[in-house]
């Protein structure tokens, strides 16, 4: 149950993800961006931060880091990949996920608690959640405003690929509950094959009660569980 955590110059949630995987009983390992192999990892996490300083555009330079070839191959072969925050931006830039993350509607960096609804369980990332469950966790980004063209959005919705949607405390995906202007209140999506997840909120910062929320931990438990099941099968 080895989980590779990709570390770029400028990654700063690598330790948070490391701890999250540990708490979920997986075996995390850092993989520096210049490496060309994932070292036999069973899953990959692309953590948050400011890879390569977010210069040009978040994720725009990171996609050219040597390790991204291995990550892309891993994803094409069906390997499980999670991109959180800046990781989501990197995966979009690398073409592993559709759409783009634009500047927040407020035009400001936003760091605060948000709520999102679990749209679908039974995926490798959400198997330990309940459908419709409302999760609370921090978000922290300047560019989290999800955009995709109408055809892509229609596909995402029709294929049930929106896994998380911003909502209010009662689970309603209202305009007021949308923190950054994301289309359809989208907080997290998967690719067509369902093995690559990108999300803006930080499950890696919601893994301990003393920090205010444990709603993020089941995501890592789902991931580690999915790997374990695959190994058994």
């Amino acid at each position, binding site marked *: 149950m080895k989980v590779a955590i990709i570390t770029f*110059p*400028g990654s*700063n*949630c690598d*330790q*948070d993800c490391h*701890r999250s995987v540990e708490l979920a009983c997986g075996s995390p390992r850092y993989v520096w961006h210049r490496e060309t192999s994932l070292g036999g990892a069973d899953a990959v996490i692309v953590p*948050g*931060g*400011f890879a*390569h*300083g*977010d*210069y040009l555009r978040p994720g725009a330079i990171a996609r050219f880091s040597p390790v991204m070839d291995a990550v892309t191959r891993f994803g094409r072969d069906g390997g499980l990949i999670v991109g959180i925050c800046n990781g989501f931006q990197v995966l979009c830039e690398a073409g592993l996920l559709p759409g783009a993350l634009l500047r927040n509607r407020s035009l*400001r*960096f*936003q*760091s*605060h*608690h948000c709520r999102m609804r679990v749209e679908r369980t039974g995926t490798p990332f959400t198997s330990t959640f309940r459908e419709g469950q409302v999760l*609370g966790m*921090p978000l*922290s980004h*300047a560019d989290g405003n999800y955009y995709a063209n109408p055809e892509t959005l229609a596909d995402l919705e029709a294929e049930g690929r929106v896994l998380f949607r911003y909502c209010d405390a009662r689970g309603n995906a209202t305009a007021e509950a949308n923190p950054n202007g994301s289309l359809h209140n989208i907080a997290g999506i998967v690719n067509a094959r369902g093995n690559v997840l990108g999300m803006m909120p*930080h499950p*890696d*910062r919601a*893994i*301990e009660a*003393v*920090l*205010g929320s444990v709603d993020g931990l089941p995501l890592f438990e789902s991931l580690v569980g999915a790997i374990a099941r695959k190994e058994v099968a």
Partner: protein
Amino acid sequence: MANPASGNGGAPAAGGPGGTATLESPLPRPGDPAITPELVEDHGLSPDEYAQIRRIMGREPTFTELGVFSAMWSEHCGYKNSKRLLRLLPTQAPWVIQGPGENAGVIDVGGGYALAFKIESHNHPSAVEPYQGAATGVGGILRDVFTMGARPVATLNSLHFGDLDIPRVRYLFGGVVKGLGDYGNCVGIPSTGGEVYFDRGYEDNPIVNAMCLGLMRKEDLIRGTAEGVGNTLMAVGARTGRDGIHGATFASEELSEGDDEASRPQVQVGDPFTEKLLLEASLELIASGHIVGIQDMGAAGLTSSGAEMAGRSGTGVEMDVALVPVREQGMTPYEILLSESQERMLVVAEAGKEDAVREILEKWELEAETIGSVTATGSFRVLEGGVAVADIPALPLTDGCPTYERQGAEGDDVRELREMDIAPYVEPPGGLEDAFLRVVGSPNVASKQWVYEQYDTTVRGNSIERPGGDAGVIRIPGTNRGVAASTDCNGRHTYLNPRAGAMGAVAEAARNVACTGAVPMAVTNCLNFGSPLKSHIQHQFREAVLGMRDACAYLETPVTGGNVSFYNETDGKAVYPTPVIGMVGVIDDVEAVVRYAFRDPGDPILLLGANTGELGGSEYLYALHGLVAGEPPPVDLPAERALQRCILAMAQLRLLKSAHDVASGGLAATLTECCLGRPRTGRSVGAAVRFTDALSDTALLFGEDHGRVVLTCAPEDEDRLLRHAANYGVPCARIGTVTDPRAPLEIETPSSRLRLESETLRERYYGVIPDIMNQ
């Protein structure tokens, strides 16, 4: 820069014989301007100071040497107008590992860990270019902490601006907040607290002070020293450019021959991405054991880092500026030595380990170049392509700066304001409820959510108490221990009475830390004042230092360093004297952290401490009458100490369900905050409160008397709390009960009844700053 409140540790006198005796003296460099009295004056040096330089040198200095002296003997590096007074501050305690004089102070926080912490100003650059000015302030303070071997774990900032109805103030405020946020967010350091004040006293000169906390294992501490003759000096990180050269004002044509470009801005530009790489590389370097010393090239760049490292060790350094990686061609030694380009470090590597150092830097995509070595000469010696351009005894350069102590006298205008009879203003013009809502809705009291939501507060997963509470609390990674920190200074109080105000700043900062259940341990300070050449500023500074001395000594929170920022004035008008206190504390178990918000209906509300109704310098007078007047609240140090010990004992016994300090805006502000709770995640409750004090309603609700905390506990613990308070000799009385979610805040006094709807309070408290800034 190091705060020299304590001596240098008895390094041997430098400049004496040692090393090779026949080093050639530097000669004037072709193109150097002649040293004239005007040039000396332009360098901010008096004729007496120049005479002393000649005595130290035994000859005329070269232009390059003059620049070096000018920087090292500036207020910023040399503390010439503050050093003598700063020596009065208490600096020692068994838990202090590193006091003043280093890049940052360090204390023992138990469990084998040490905490490095420091606060620094970036007022002047922020007044000119708020975004970069503030951003580079964060960069500098992070470097001061990680050069001690500590990983930065939290930042705080203390900000003071003019009134928000002035467009330029909004521009400065917005730019500073964005600059602080963008830099800290990119480096990945959570912001855990701070303070923001608005008052016309800061209209032209904002105060922007950034504080950083860093943690390390005690054995990983490293200092900014140049030990070991023959060891190698290396320039690490970003390249050196012409940005930020020298505060003194002279035309750039004199600086560099063959460079026709217009003069460069004094404000440096920050690159947080390089900072992040430098942070990781420096910590890896320190862990590798290949280096013996490291220091930020901060103010006065290579000059101060080289001279201070040599001065601290009693060694010398020799460096060749031709070897320093530069951003542009044709830079003179003067420029290279005084450049303040950001994100650079001076490293002393063990001889023979240069390649290993370079390898670590290369991994982080940074440069490391050998530029010189440690010598036994006691000299700060600089070459240019092998030709000597400066050779100055290091210790007199760092410690020989002439110091001045002036008594000064209080300004007449301040005395008049302080002695003014404020009784005519006690009656609120629009009634008590109107006054209540105006105080709670004044930008000083209102929520700073608009500010702190632009800062990443949760990165790295150890933020226990985030901004908005009494003090920020960060868990020590991998343990249950935590460190708490708060920054405080009520500039109105220090303006009206610098001694009482400074004492109050220390007391309030300690009280804030204690309210979370953490024991206040030590202080870093940032002393923001006007020109030290003016009598009334000298008076303010002296009084503030004396107030700090008394409070820090009494509360057993020694000062481990800090920063002095003078000349915060425009057109002869100085800012309020603003001695910002950065207080740090320790808590054994972060699960026991006490939060500020009321929790459950039915919980008894208690007031610890006594109401005395101090309206002098209050937010009430400013918000309703536009007045900064009256005698500010005095601090009763024995009562304050007893109160804090009492709170800590209650927290340790886990008797507290909430605790919140009373400060700006008085009980009105405190009760509002306790009821509203945190935005987004919190739940608002109501409260029914009754006071029996024989004070006017205004003095009771808006007085800013020190030494008070509002508490709640479980109903069954009320008697125990009251007994504890009695044991500590602290007045404590039940003042009310927490009521239902969304219920109003009801307050009864001997003469009035107030009923404040939750939604009205919420709109005022959370709405005012976003409404102003989003308009």
